[in-house]
């Protein structure tokens, strides 16, 4: 593995670590954006340009901004409460479970390593794959996102308890 991989990996992990450990929530969000960028860099390193740019577009451009918005629009939480024991008791098994699921997914996948002969698929191949062999998951994700969008709109609609003002 070339040194660029290690630089990118170190960058990603370090910014991820700071995203967890910094005191100021906005700093954490910005570090998270940096970590997303690092992941995009890793994708680029694997010659997967499309996925890298989609990662930047979706995660840096939308998710990080969404997190920042959530931080700004919710109550100021800079003063920190001490962690209670129940929180700790709940959080350890929960995070262990999530880690187990992710690790299981990572190790059970046949990873195509770089340099093993197969080149990264072009955008055209990606599109063809998405529209033929993976069309059902794609459609399901589309329906899921639409439902989420509708749910957000329903939540955001003003309540119609009082009759609208005569204008």
């Amino acid at each position, binding site marked *: 593995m070339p040194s660029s991989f290690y630089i990118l990996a170190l960058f990603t992990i370090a910014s991820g670590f700071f995203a967890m450990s910094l005191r100021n929530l*906005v700093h954490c969000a*910005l570090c998270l954006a940096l970590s997303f960028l690092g992941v995009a860099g890793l994708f680029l390193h694997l010659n997967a*340009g499309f996925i890298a*740019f*989609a990662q930047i577009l979706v995660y840096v451009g939308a998710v990080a*901004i969404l997190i920042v918005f959530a931080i*700004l629009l919710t109550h100021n939480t800079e003063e920190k409460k001490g962690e209670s024991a129940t929180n700790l008791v709940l959080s350890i098994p929960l995070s262990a479970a999530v880690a187990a699921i992710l690790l299981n997914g990572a190790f059970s996948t046949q990873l195509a390593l770089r340099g093993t002969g197969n080149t990264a698929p*072009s955008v*055209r191949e990606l599109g063809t794959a998405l529209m033929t062999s993976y069309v059902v998951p794609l459609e399901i994700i589309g329906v899921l996102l639409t439902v989420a969008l509708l749910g957000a709109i329903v939540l955001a609609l003003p309540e119609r308890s009082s009759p609208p003002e005569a*204008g």
Partner: protein
Amino acid sequence: MTAVEQVDQVFVTAKRHVVDLAPLEFQPIISVLLSIIPILAVFPLLFAITTILERKGLGRIQNRLGPNRVGPYGILQPVADGLKTLFKESVQPRAAEKVIFFLAPVVLVIPALLAFSVIPYGRNMVPLEMDAALLFFFAVGAGTELAVFMAGWASRNKYSLLGAMRAIAQMLSYEIPLILSAVPVVMLSGTLSPAAIVSAQDTYTATIAHWNVFKPWGFAAFIVFLIAAAAESNRSPFDLPEGESEIIAGYYIEYSGFKFALFFLGEYLGLFAICGLGITLFLGGYTAPFSFLNWIPSWIWFFTKLLALVCFFIWVRGTMPRVRMDQLMNFAWKFMLPMALINILAAAAWRFVPILGFRWSISALIVATGYFALGEGLTQKGQYGKRTYKFAS
């Protein structure tokens, strides 16, 4: 190579000659530098030209003279402006977050400059050939939002924070129609590479070029793209993140001196980049509109179109008043987004209807129906209708 082709490719051959002079191990880096340096030289220069054009043009639109003191006809005004901003004191609020406050203008300018790397400026003149270059362009644009947020938040000023929130809400809302308006072009040329999109438009029937803007779906997409581009680059009439009357200057209220100049530069570079993309997608990139004009070098065509588009934005800025926040959001979600989606339908009709006349009429019909229906929906609901008052009649 004919003489015309030689003039057309003058920069390409010059670069190749220079690269050939260098020793073999330095050739890649020399090649990269020779692509970067012209971008860094040309676009800030274009920024300077645009500021004077904008000030003169706005002046003329308002029946004024515009700046005319520095140099003949005031053409050296940008030099004076630049020197002034360079010599101004850079004030930093005591409460500001030092690092983020400093980084924000940098983070704004870098994506704007990166976006220039995938635009074809002439035949064989793409700095960075990439498979997913169009996606790269939009992905890079996402960095601007983060920079705006950083600037607004780090200033520790409620006006800048409000301005940043407005700017981000606006950019997020208009990014969707912007990307969706590029989708029909991608659908019909079957590629995400700008160079391939341009060469797909580089054919002629009866001397008229096959630019996308000359087709019904392309025209509609171009209009949607222009409006979304104005909103993305915070140009008037969508410049309410920096509304002077209510939030003074929005997210760069606390910036002064060279950092302010960087913000200004970043905003205009973003405008140029998005204009360049619009030219690539809809206006045939570096190609001539008529085949008998093909003897003019391709890069001249590109920059002529770029200047024309920038002048159009200046014209719009001199004409339209700033929209209100709710009008902005209504327009984005109730007109731009559905219009872009309908337009994709029109492009699909164009793609799958075999006969040329049919293809034209069906596509145009879909676009026109969508436009009129959405326009009626916007105007009938009282959103843009006659204003009513509570007490005055």
